[in-house]
């Protein structure tokens, strides 16, 4: 039953902080970094005003932030942190450990470019570096999605069949600092949706002592990793159940991908993050002109929804993939994975790779149109990486 929601004009960071407030973590250990700081600052104000009962640990680095969160989650508490760019890179070692220990942690990530040179603006290089870490990775298109996906993530990570940490990504400055209209559920509904934290093998259960993080020799490590692989396979089914429940209370429907005017589209663009908003605008314009174009927005990047790409992109004339990060020495991440997913489809489309927006370089409708026009005229070379907005 859909509930009455409150409309607020807030930034993506504030939306994240509100979601966190309703999740009510027991422990938040975070270190400030632009552009994530407003999330932690807003949340700290909620704590100081007594709006949420959370203990904040003002750690001395992101590495310690994730370490403390691992300790708190293993102890049996609901624990969260947030970061960006080099902060995420610094905690990289522990990010892997958090997933390997199967701890249900939710971490909003505000996407920012990795150094060097140091750049505080948006691109996806930070989160792409964590692709193999074993975390579930979700991407929000706008502040509303930030709010909704963080609540969904809290349920997803703590589910018995999953027990994996989740990263919810939002584009730095573009979403995190842009004010939008966001509908917030009332506290009671949100809390009921997220539910009570269920600890599994908590350290604080002294009657049943457990050992976390032993030494594996070559006789067990492989089996432990296979278990993690298996856990990722359960995510889709659980996600589908959770988003259905969420639709019933919020009226908003989520899926691992969002097709936009895809039905009869000949040329499809695929992208992650806020750019999808701009792409929808261009799709609409080009549709008015009679071009059969569409968008396939990706919400869940890990686990990679291969089947969706196979079903929805099979038989198209052309697919252009926009990547907001480069993989030096190889094809761009999203492009490469989609191309590989389409290896065995019945009718493979033409494909083109477009890298854009690195270090916060703006993506304009003209640039998107250019990519679509390449697709429509069939002027695509699968092996050629092209750049949108780069000065040659």
């Amino acid at each position, binding site marked *: 039953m859909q509930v009455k929601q409150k409309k607020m004009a807030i930034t993506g960071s504030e939306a994240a902080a509100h979601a966190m407030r309703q999740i009510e973590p027991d422990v938040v250990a975070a270190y400030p970094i632009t552009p994530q700081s407003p999330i932690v600052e807003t949340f700290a104000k909620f704590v100081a005003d007594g709006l949420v009962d959370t203990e904040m640990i003002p750690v001395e680095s992101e590495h310690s932030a994730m370490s403390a969160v691992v300790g708190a989650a293993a102890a049996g508490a609901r624990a969260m942190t947030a970061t960006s760019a080099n902060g995420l890179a610094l905690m990289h070692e522990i990010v892997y450990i958090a997933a*390997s*220990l*199967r*701890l249900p942690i939710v971490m909003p990530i505000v996407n920012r470019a990795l150094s060097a040179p140091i750049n505080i603006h948006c691109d996806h290089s930070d989160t792409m570096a964590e692709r193999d870490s074993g975390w579930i990775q979700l991407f929000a298109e706008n502040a509303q999605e930030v709010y909704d996906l963080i609540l969904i993530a809290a349920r997803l990570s703590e589910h018995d069949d999953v*027990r994996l940490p989740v990263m919810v990504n939002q584009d730095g400055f573009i979403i995190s600092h842009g004010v939008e209209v966001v509908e917030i559920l009332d506290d009671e509904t949100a809390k009921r949706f997220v539910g009570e934290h269920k600890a599994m*093998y908590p350290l604080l259960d002294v009657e*049943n*002592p*457990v*050992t*976390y*993080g*032993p030494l*594996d020799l070559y*006789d*067990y490590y*492989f*089996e*432990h990793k*296979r*278990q993690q692989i*298996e*856990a990722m396979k359960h995510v889709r089914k659980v996600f589908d159940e959770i988003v259905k429940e969420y639709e019933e209370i919020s009226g908003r429907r989520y899926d691992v991908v969002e097709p936009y005017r895809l039905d009869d589209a000949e040329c499809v663009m695929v992208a992650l993050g806020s750019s999808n908003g701009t792409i929808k605008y261009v799709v609409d314009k080009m549709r008015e002109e009679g071009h059969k174009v569409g968008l396939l927005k990706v919400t869940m990047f890990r686990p990679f929804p291969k089947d969706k790409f196979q079903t929805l992109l099979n038989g198209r004339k052309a697919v252009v993939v926009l990547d907001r990060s480069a993989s030096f020495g190889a094809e761009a991440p999203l492009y490469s994975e989609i191309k590989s997913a389409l290896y065995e489809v019945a009718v493979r489309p033409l494909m083109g790779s477009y890298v854009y927006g690195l270090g916060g370089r703006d993506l304009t409708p003209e640039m998107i149109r250019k990519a679509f026009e390449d697709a429509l005229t069939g002027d695509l070379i699968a092996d050629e990486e092209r750049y949108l907005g780069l000065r040659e």
Partner: protein
Amino acid sequence: MAKLKGWRELPIGGLIVDAGNAMEYKTGSWRVMRPVYTREKCIDCMLCWLICPDMSIIQKDGKMIGINYDYCKGCGLCAKICPKNAIEMKPETEFQE
């Protein structure tokens, strides 16, 4: 040696839930020297029990019972600390069949 478990049989996250199961691994085979205990000389001071790195000195209610040869690695700390020389280190070979 027990048959190694497959990935479906292990607890998740690399956790070990059977606390203290290291006792299934008998380190007594490491021994080169064996501590030999003479009850008559012992005054139950509990010093050897206190410091044994392998928890191989057995006591009950403050009374020495003996040495657990399943785990004793023969380091000799007990013999060294004993104020009454109630423990003597002898080559393990003397006790092989």
